[in-house]
């Protein structure tokens, strides 16, 4: 491949039944392109955590990805409450998820740390009352 391959996927807040569909779409694309399995797993895990945050905290959002021969760029932006204190939110174990979310298996406060751990470049921007954007880049070698 010598061009950039792009894709996007809408994510609807509160839609737990379809949770993971956006990440699965990116994963399938990377599998199709023959990317290394361990790298695909990192991309899928990071994307899934970001997708879950949109589903849990925001009204709606979008996954966009750009794949070049060297790397995949993953951007997830949402219309939601935003994050007041990003430094605090990035701490392992910090979570504002309500009990019912925890009962569904989410809200361990490990999502953002997990995104950071699995990506080579990680950037988060958030405006309270407007929304949050997470941008991650994963290199193929």
């Amino acid at each position, binding site marked *: 491949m010598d061009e950039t391959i792009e894709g996007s996927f809408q994510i609807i807040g509160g839609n*737990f*039944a379809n*949770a*993971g*569909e956006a*990440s*699965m779409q990116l*994963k399938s694309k990377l599998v199709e392109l023959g990317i290394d399995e361990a790298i695909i*797993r990192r991309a*899928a*895990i990071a994307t*899934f*955590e970001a997708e*879950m945050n949109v589903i849990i905290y925001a009204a709606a959002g979008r996954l966009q990805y750009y794949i070049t021969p060297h790397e995949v760029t993953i951007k997830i932006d949402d219309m939601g409450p935003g994050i007041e204190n990003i430094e605090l939110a990035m701490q392992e174990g910090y979570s504002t998820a309500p009990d019912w979310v925890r009962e*569904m*298996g*989410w*809200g*361990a*406060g*490990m*999502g953002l*740390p*997990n995104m950071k*751990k699995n990506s080579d470049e990680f950037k988060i921007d958030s405006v309270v009352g407007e929304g949050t954007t997470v941008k991650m880049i994963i290199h193929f070698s």
Partner: protein
Amino acid sequence: MTLKDVAEILEADVIADADDLNITIKNACSADMMSAVLYYHTPDSLLITGLTQPHVIRTAEIAGIKSIVFVLDKKPGDDIIALARQKKIPILCTRFCMYTASGKLYAAGLPGCLFK
């Protein structure tokens, strides 16, 4: 051990094709928190969980989990069974609780998955 061994040790009901019981399980992780499954390095593991929701199957697929054990006699719904079949992830259902199921497998020689 094979998935067949796991099923015997846990006296489990199997929701999978017969061939699937031949797959080898190298290690396991017990969790109800999906982020923990995603955080720890779990490819090729067995997931032991009390949660029966479709996103458990998707989490398993994304994390590279080989098979899922549902504890405490929880019966997964048809939607979950269909999704698991589609993703080729065999399901076992055991009446044991998470602690006992994990303990039985550990005692039989199945180690925990590599953390971090």
